[in-house]
């Protein structure tokens, strides 16, 4: 369900300046600004629930934190927060045996939030499908350049197989993907769902905040997705 910008400003009592300032700071993702034609020309709409929750949260926290800190808390995917080896060891969803392999294949030892989500997806794929460390290394090397382009988490990570070799594909949520029939779809993971569970589970460790209602969250336990 969408809300128009005019309605949003009235309902939340914020100004144009605040709205666009928060957009600049990455507190409100660019993807939430949806332009649609109206009888007066073109108007901007937002996903109602998400934007109202986000603005409420910003209004609650803006006196305690700077906008930069808020961006790190509310939208880690756009912040410059890096996750070190120590952080990876705290996150149970990251397969510890894969950490050296991630360092090697990505050529670095700290990762952005979006990269972290992909590392978790790879860890889950390994557990689900008994992938070898070599398989994960090949997948990491193959996907690392594509991840640089990701600035948001609304993506599906798809594991494919052909002739005994595994491949990864990342594609935007809410879009279908059609593949060559020689590529067998093995499994898929929604990065947004991993993000929601990570934000909730590690909100204290990493000062991440959550916006989704808890009963809507998907937890990933033992490689299985469980609706709580």
């Amino acid at each position, binding site marked *: 369900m969408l809300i128009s910008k*005019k309605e949003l400003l*009235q309902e939340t009592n914020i*100004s*144009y*300046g605040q709205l*666009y*300032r928060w*957009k*600049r700071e990455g507190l409100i993702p*660019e993807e939430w600004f949806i332009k649609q034609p109206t009888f*007066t*020309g*073109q108007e901007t709409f937002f996903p109602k629930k998400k934007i109202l929750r986000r603005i409420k949260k910003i209004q609650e926290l803006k006196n305690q934190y700077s906008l930069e800190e808020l961006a790190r808390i509310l939208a880690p995917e756009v912040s410059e927060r890096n996750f070190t080896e120590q952080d990876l060891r705290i996150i149970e969803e990251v397969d510890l045996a894969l950490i050296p392999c991630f360092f090697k294949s990505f050529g670095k030892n700290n990762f952005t939030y979006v990269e972290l989500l992909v590392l978790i997806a790879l860890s889950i794929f390994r557990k689900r499908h008994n992938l070898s460390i070599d398989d994960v290394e090949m997948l990491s090397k193959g996907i690392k350049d594509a991840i640089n382009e990701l600035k948001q988490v609304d993506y599906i990570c798809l594991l494919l197989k052909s002739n005994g070799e595994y491949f990864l594909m990342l594609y935007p949520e809410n879009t279908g993907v059609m593949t060559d029939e020689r590529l067998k779809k093995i499994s898929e993971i929604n990065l947004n769902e991993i993000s929601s569970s990570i934000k909730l589970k590690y909100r204290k460790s990493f000062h991440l905040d959550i916006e989704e209602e808890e009963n809507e969250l998907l937890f990933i336990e033992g490689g299985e997705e469980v609706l709580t």
Partner: protein
Amino acid sequence: MRSSSIAFGDRHYEGNYNRLAIAGDAEITNSDVKKVYCAGDLSISKSTIGNLKFAGDLEADSVTIGTIKGAGDASFSGLCKVDNCVMVGDLECDMLECEILQNGPRSERVNTTSTPTWEGVFKGETFENFKELALEGEIEFKNIILSAPLSTKTEISCDNFYLFSGLTFGSINAEHTFILASSNVHLDTVTGCTVEVKKEFKPGKEFKRIRKNGKYNNLCSDNGIASVDNIEADNIYLENTKSKYICGINVVIGDLCIVDRVEYQDTIEISHKAIVNEVVKT
């Protein structure tokens, strides 16, 4: 003790120097140098340079430099930091952090033959553009001052945006935007806290406070009409502007404006020399 060197021909330097003047190609590694003047290609890595002037191509890797004045193509790899960087030529970087980054010489007497292309991520306090530039990367600056056209595919986002030249691209999102009205301005959307389109620019306190290289005193427009399709801001002041849709809290539509629809929240003033099709109080 630091030494100085004047060299003709190719050279390699490593260590601490006061001044290096080189006519030829040079390589500087693991060094700390106060001043470098080079006519020729220059490669610098893991070094700190106080003041660098070069004519030729520059390759820099993980360097910290006080001031650069360079004519030629430059490539910065790794994280490079420069306090004041003035470049004429193509620029490529992984991540270049500058307090002031300037494209093109300020002097009108210096002519450049082609439009340079800049690729990579450029970050810092103030970006000034004095010659036409094709930007294929990202600029993240607090203040952006354009005195020459810039082409880019992404929305420009900053705290303070000043436009003193023609410009044709999508959108600007800035806390404060000033546009010197000109018939060469064609923008899709301008958003933020304050948006001003005026025939004249007189630098105010805020502008004077910005650290910059250029001098921008009392600029006047060509009396043309700027075209900005959509403007959304808390405070809007327009002169010589053609617009489809304007919405704000306090809006002033000055002389020679042509506007299809205005939505305002608190106050509106419309000049009798302006044409406004529809006014709505929200």
